[in-house]
């Protein structure tokens, strides 16, 4: 395989890149990655959680499943999922953000969303990180779709609908490979991941030609 680019993304920061149809994005991490993508020829065509769930007819996706756009086109295919069997990726959460942390703190609910009242609260999160990663493409904040939250294992009781954060994450950095089904702008945030045992860690983003 031919490496096109290989980037280290520090904890609680963002990354963006262009990739061609057929190329593969490898995301490697042991904490949450918020991931979004856009059609590089029409940046208004974005990844969409709802279309993705309904196309695959399930709320959790893994190897072989496709990421869909709001305009109903396949954007990416999951080629490999090393988290499979250990945990699930999330399609329920939006992005964390400075204002979101502040609201949870003000309402005394940090423990419901994260794992403790006495944890340090960052002034920014994935929403700001994705804005930074997408800066070269002039994407407005409200145009950033709700992401595929890689390695964000969440416990959902499908009888009651209850969502509970979980500290379940990869024990060491593992990867998810996503093949581009169209030319794309891709962006990822190394989530501050306040529910992970040691909080958010750096991630590696690699684009290669198979």
């Amino acid at each position: 395989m031919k490496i096109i680019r290989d980037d280290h993304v520090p904890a609680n920061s963002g990354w963006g890149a262009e990739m061609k149809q057929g190329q593969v994005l490898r995301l490697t991490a042991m904490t949450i990655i918020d991931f979004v993508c856009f059609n590089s020829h029409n940046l208004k065509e974005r990844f969409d959680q709802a279309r993705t769930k309904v196309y695959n007819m399930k709320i959790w996706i893994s190897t072989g499943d496709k990421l869909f756009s709001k305009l109903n086109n396949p954007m990416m295919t999951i080629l490999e999922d090393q988290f499979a069997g250990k945990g699930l990726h999330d399609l329920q959460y939006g992005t964390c953000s400075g204002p979101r942390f502040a609201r949870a703190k003000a309402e005394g609910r940090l423990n419901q969303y994260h794992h403790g009242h006495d944890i340090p609260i960052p002034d920014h999160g994935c929403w700001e990180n994705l804005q930074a990663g997408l800066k070269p493409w002039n994407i407005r904040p409200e145009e950033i779709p709700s992401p595929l939250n890689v390695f964000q294992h969440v416990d959902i009781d499908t009888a009651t609908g209850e969502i509970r954060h979980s500290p379940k994450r990869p024990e060491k950095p593992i990867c998810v490979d996503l093949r581009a089904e169209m030319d794309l702008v891709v962006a990822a945030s190394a989530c501050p991941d306040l529910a992970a045992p040691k909080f958010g860690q750096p991630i590696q983003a690699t684009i290669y030609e198979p």
Partner: protein
Amino acid sequence: MKIVREDTVRPNTGWFAEVSKGQIVRIAGRSVIDVVAFKRGDPAEFFDVARTRIYNLNIYPTKGHRLFSKQNNPMMRMVADGFAGAGHHDLQSPHGCPQLMLGVLKPLGIAAENLPDPLGLFRHMAIEQKTGRMTPTPRAIAAPATIDLEAEIDVVVALVNCPDAKTSPPGADAVVTVLAP
């Protein structure tokens, strides 16, 4: 409360209104009704299913839950849910009738790619615990159930009565009432 307006929304038609803070949108229906909301005067702030799920820490919206915007602000609160016990409302699916909704939203000029995903009232979606598999499972109810949404800010609310044999009991008229305190 005082009735500000009351409209019958027939299957495959929609409804659009400006609703002021403190007013209640009462929706009485039996078939799937997709609802979206925008901050009045700023359509770039819109109802967001993901923020709503996570603020409430629940994937099935019901009485007491708040509808949140993309910008993380409360927009509306569900203060009555007459469907509770019969089935769940849906926050997973895209619009059943996107073209109809885009037509209803014409006064705001919302493009297809910016159409927020809806609150799918009466769209009961069975979700398997182990696999996450989603199966639309229409829940027939004998009489129309009433959902009350109280505006927490000045909003624009749009809805479409969007019955579909796969997702919904047979289409029924919905009655939408705006109530002022």
